[in-house]
């Protein structure tokens, strides 16, 4: 393995960590609520802008800003689920999907009215560069990976060790049976929307930190989130984590063999290949449930 390979693995880990965080929430909604939420990308944008606002205007510490942004976007997600999505739940996944597309447009417009259409950069340093033999990594990148890993760890604990978390997994695993067994589906739904939206907010802050903050973020990110979600097996949370990382690595490692202008083609190429080999998703253990 050459130094360039290893360096690109680090890049891929960073890309993949953010992607995994962004996709897990999307996937949870897909599984427990039963539809594809295109507006997830806009929640990410909102997170990025809120994080930027906290850091740049209120001069908050970046960790605090990230937390505050998660909290606000999470609550906003719950609100959206009640006001926008619950009323169309009975109309089926197509109606829900298009409600989410409508919501994406609506949020996109609102974000532009409130925050403007300009591109901005977080006014915060990213720590120094650390040389580890042939490769190097910056403190900020380590933090992103560490934060992503911690959040995933906490999420796993929440899902396996708490009653609410078990209910969420049960609902994701078999939504109809969850209703039959008297699981409080509303509470599960609120929890899922909060967690998923908060994760979108966190991913938004991370994207903003490593890249930039602008209103188009949501549209560009949702495509790649969809790819990761399908690759992981829609709704399989651990599969999605793996898929996010894999996709990040594939995109950055592909730079070594083919021109980087094909980076997005690589992402979708991996997706298509994955579906050809395992139509139910690369990491999904059970058979897919049809929409």
């Amino acid at each position, binding site marked *: 393995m050459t130094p360039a390979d290893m360096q*690109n693995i680090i890049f891929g880990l*960073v890309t993949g960590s953010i992607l995994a965080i962004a996709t897990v929430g999307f996937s949870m909604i897909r599984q427990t609520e039963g539809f594809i939420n295109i507006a997830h990308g806009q929640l990410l944008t909102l997170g990025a802008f809120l994080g930027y606002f906290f850091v740049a205007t209120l001069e908050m510490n970046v960790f605090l800003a990230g937390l505050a942004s998660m909290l606000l976007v999470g609550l906003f997600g719950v609100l959206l689920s009640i006001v926008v999505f619950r009323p169309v739940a009975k109309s089926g996944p197509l109606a829900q999907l298009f409600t989410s597309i409508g919501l994406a447009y609506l949020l996109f417009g609102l974000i532009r009215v409130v925050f403007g259409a300009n*591109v901005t950069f977080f006014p*915060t340093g*990213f720590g120094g560069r650390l040389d580890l033999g042939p490769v190097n990594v910056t403190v900020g990148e380590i933090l992103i990976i560490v934060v992503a890993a911690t959040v995933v760890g906490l999420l796993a604990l929440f899902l396996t060790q708490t009653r609410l978390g078990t209910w969420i997994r049960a609902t994701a695993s078999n939504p109809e049976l969850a209703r039959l067994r008297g699981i409080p589906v509303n509470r599960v739904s609120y929890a899922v929307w909060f967690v998923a939206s908060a994760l979108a907010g966190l991913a938004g802050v991370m994207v903003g930190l490593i890249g930039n903050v602008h209103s188009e973020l949501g549209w560009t*990110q949702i495509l790649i989130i969809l790819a990761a979600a399908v690759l992981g097996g829609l709704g399989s949370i651990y599969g999605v984590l793996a898929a996010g990382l894999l996709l990040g690595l594939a995109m950055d490692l592909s*730079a070594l063999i083919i021109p*980087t202008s094909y*980076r997005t083609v690589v992402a979708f190429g991996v997706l298509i290949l994955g579906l050809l080999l395992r139509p139910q998703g690369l990491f999904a253990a059970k058979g897919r449930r049809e929409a």
Partner: protein
Amino acid sequence: MKPGLRQMVILAVIALVAAACGDAGGEADTTVGGDTTTSAGSEATTTAGDGATSTAGDGEEGPIKFGMLIGVTGDYAPYYDVSKAGADVAIAEINDAGGVLGRQVELVVVDNKSTVEGAVQGFSQIVDVEGVHVLGGPESDGAIANLQAIKDLQLPTICPACGTSELDEAGGDYIWRITGSDSDGGLIAAQFARDAGYTRVAMLVQNTEGASAPADVFKQVFTEIIGGEVVADVRFDPGQSSYQAQVDQAFADEPEVVYVGSGFEAGGIILTEWQRRGYGGGFLFSPDMVVPEIAALTEQGVEIGDGVARAAIAAYDTGSPAYESYAPRYEAITGEQPTPGLYDANQYDQYIILALAITAAGTTDGPAVAAEITELLNPPGTTVYSYADGVAAIEAGEDIDYHGASSSLDVNEFGNLSSPNFGEQNIVDGQWSQVATVELDPSLRP
């Protein structure tokens, strides 16, 4: 089902009937325009001119409408505010000097959404609904999308900021470009590299037309004519959250300098990554990077100031009286200095040119106005630096040669600047500033 079918048939019939009527109307328009352009009477020509540009047909009463078809939203949105400010300065100047042909001038802004589809619909809106007499403002893709329609409608159009190589030989009859082309931008960057003695250059180029066209010229000139080596040519798609692998690839073979051809959205990310990793070295920037957002990065610790990053952009002619009079008025609106990378002075110049052309033609008739533009930009003639001076000279029966705030604005047969001014830009104290003017070396032309 039957009612549905009936509705469709009715719609289709209406469409066909309308088409037939439109056909007749269209012919009438063309005839009127063609017949009366030679007529001397100003009253008649004004009316006819409206017909020829198939406008809403307002008479000689009311304001003359100057169109601005521009990206208010979308990718070009960040340029909008300053562009509008530049245009406002011109419109105010024109109206303060008594308007054009005794009529006030009104600026009509229509959003092209920074997309091709938006440009086509916006063009129809600004021409058909608003009935503008002349047009300015479009960016490269918007101008290209409507190129054919502009010629069909004989609508005098000035492109203040289109770099596209598609316009290198397409204009001169109804469309003019008053900024340096992308091709020249690539050329001047190569000249920079030569003068600095660079032999090993890497390239980081965004996969969009405005970025890749000059980059290709740069690469061709630098390798074939100057004899340098491009050690890495990394192309990327915009809109990604990070470009770590791409930046790493560009710097892998330790180039002396990296040419960055990119919009500032991706460019900003690239520079922050460069800073984090401490790759070192220097940059040559494409003109799109010469915007305040990039300069402001130095305040966030990205060390590209003081000549680390150099760019050559079409310079403003800061010594020109036109510039000296324009700059304070622009500053009064925006609180900022005119900025060459933002093309605000070009936006200003275009409307002064169009107003002078209408004055010289004595009509708003498209072909007549268009016929004046090349003449009033080029010598011979009395050199004028403002709208009022130009009007005075025209009324005195003189030929004029307008020198603008952006440059002397001499154009060639294709409506392109024949000798665009370039200035070397460095970031000093968090702002782009011009450190030298550069003359393009013609021997480098491929």
